[in-house]
């Protein structure tokens, strides 16, 4: 190899190598935070590399934290309704005053009761949406989708997929049975066994986010219970017939929040990251993340999002949707175990 070739190779390798940053920020996240479009402005502005690790389900996230050493993780995305669980286990640090002002937030998703414990705020709500019914409007009658009962009517047997996450789907099955999510205790959960098994019998598959998107996009199924804008928005350009609605029985409101992990050695940088993500620009980028879309908690993001993006997010309908949606169930340990046992039985039978 000549000197010229060696130089060219080194230059090429330098170009391919990741950019060097002064420091790292380790984030335990959901997949929407892995989008380089979201992270890059923060990384450039603060000369920091954000290392992300995705996790699924609060129990798994909390176990990960408990098995890590203090300082391994700096920030964490967590279901807003589960912040209390994490604080109880001493896993989250208080947010410094003024980290995420909520004056511009949609009032319904500030969720102070969940993110502020004994007067101390531990997390900032950053994104929300709905677990409800997503469907292909060219294959089903949209009028049917205004009621959850349609899924048990027999008309759509074999054309339904169930989103593989027990909390929202059991919440929806409960709503159809007239049980509010806040009332889902151990005995109420057991009463959902029969309707859940009937739903499974009427369904073709139970699938995760990618599997559900693939099934809807390829026409494998026409209806997805547990789906919503977070699932269909990214497919909108490909297939505008994929739609979602909140039926008359209601839907479930999911709200994710961002928190500083207890024991971090970079609390200031972690707070800066939360400030960025909850800023109008960060919110707009997070709302339209390549993994899944969702409403920004901060209304000021509306000034950054395009009209087309706001249309897909149904920006103007939020006032109505928010009044009809209920929060995720927040089960205690025993109820949670009962829900997961029921879910395993449903999958296995």
């Amino acid at each position, binding site marked *: 190899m000549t000197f010229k070739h060696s130089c060219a190779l080194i230059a090429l390798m330098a170009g391919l190598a990741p950019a060097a940053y002064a420091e790292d920020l380790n984030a335990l996240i959901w997949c929407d935070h892995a989008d380089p479009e979201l992270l890059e402005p923060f990384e450039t502005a603060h000369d920091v590399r954000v290392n992300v690790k995705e996790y*699924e*389900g609060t*129990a*798994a996230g*909390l*176990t990960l934290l408990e098995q890590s050493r203090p300082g391994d993780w700096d920030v964490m995305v967590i279901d807003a309704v589960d912040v209390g*669980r994490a604080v109880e286990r001493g896993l989250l640090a208080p947010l410094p005053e003024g980290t995420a002002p909520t004056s511009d937030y949609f009032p319904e998703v500030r969720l102070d009761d969940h993110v502020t414990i004994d007067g101390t705020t531990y997390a900032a709500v950053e994104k929300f949406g709905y677990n409800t019914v997503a469907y292909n409007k060219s294959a089903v009658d949209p009028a049917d989708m205004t009621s959850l009962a349609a899924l048990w009517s027999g008309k759509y047997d*074999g054309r339904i997929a169930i989103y*593989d996450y*027990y909390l929202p789907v059991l919440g929806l099955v409960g709503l159809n049975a007239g049980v509010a999510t806040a009332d889902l205790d151990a005995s109420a959960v057991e009463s959902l066994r029969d309707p859940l098994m009937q739903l499974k019998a009427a369904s*073709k*598959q*139970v*699938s*995760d986010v*990618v*599997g559900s998107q*693939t*099934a809807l996009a*390829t*026409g*494998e199924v026409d209806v997805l219970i547990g789906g919503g804008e977070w699932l269909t928005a990214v497919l909108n350009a490909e297939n505008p017939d994929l739609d979602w609605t909140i039926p008359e029985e209601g839907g479930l409101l999911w709200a994710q929040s961002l928190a500083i992990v207890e024991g971090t050695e970079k609390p200031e940088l972690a707070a800066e990251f939360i400030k960025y993500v909850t800023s109008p620009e960060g919110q707009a980028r997070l709302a339209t993340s390549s993994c899944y879309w969702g409403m920004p908690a901060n209304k000021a993001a509306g000034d950054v999002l395009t009209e087309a993006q706001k249309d897909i997010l149904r920006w103007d309908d939020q006032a109505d949707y928010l009044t009809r949606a209920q929060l995720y169930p927040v089960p205690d*340990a*025993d109820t*949670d*175990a009962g829900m*997961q*046992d029921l879910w*395993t*039985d449903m*999958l*296995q*039978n």
Partner: protein
Amino acid sequence: MSIEAQEKRQGVALVTPALLWTLVFFAVPFGAMALMSLAHLEGREIVQGHDLGNYLRIFTDPSLRRGIFVSLEITATVTVISVLLAWPLAWIIATRVPVRWRRMVLLLAVLPFWTSYVVRSYSWALVLGEKGVVMNALVGLGLLAEPVQIMATRAATVTGFVHFFVMLLTLTIYSNLIQLSPNYARAAQDLGASQWQVIRLVILPLTLPGVMTGAFLTFVLCIGDYITPQILGGNNELTLPQLIMLQLGRRGDYPMASALSIVLMAIVTLAYAASARWLKMERV
């Protein structure tokens, strides 16, 4: 120092790195996992203990118990179908394909190994779907009046597995076949055996080590696989690895996940014990 003692010391020195490796990366983690399987979850806390409650639950809870049977049924089906398809393929490559083309044919045989498991499984999901290539062809040719469901069934999982393991088995059987001297077949033919008799009575028994080794590897890899049933099976039944992932990912129930993993290892150990008589790794 005698030559014998010197050789002994050399032998110990050569074996020590592998022994240490096994101790650090297998024996110690296995011990930790076995210990964890005796703990239990109380609320959301892991409580260390020494009871067999998790194991008892695996064999009494219908959903967990069924996981064992689902895994065994799928694995047995995949192994049998893969052997039945791979043996003739390996035999054709070893005896009917000209030597100069064999390398190319073997290369084609291992092509599926070059793609990731996830990509391969999602590709099968598109192929086997109701609007996929298979159904479009069958309906287009008039062989089916309307599409039938393959995707999100056990048949889809088995198809995805067989696609991969036929190639693995073909390689192990092929490498066994080409080591056989052609004189065995010639001698049998000289004694009046037909072509079919030569295959059935001479070649087939002699390739048993290759078949059993490939079948054992298929069994081990198949029963421990999570991705293929997760993507292709549509979560309509759960295998042992899927149940393990549920405990880890959803419940944070490390003790139950450990107990299920020990059961999985016990099944593999039993499979090894059952086939050890025929397993001759050095022959393949």
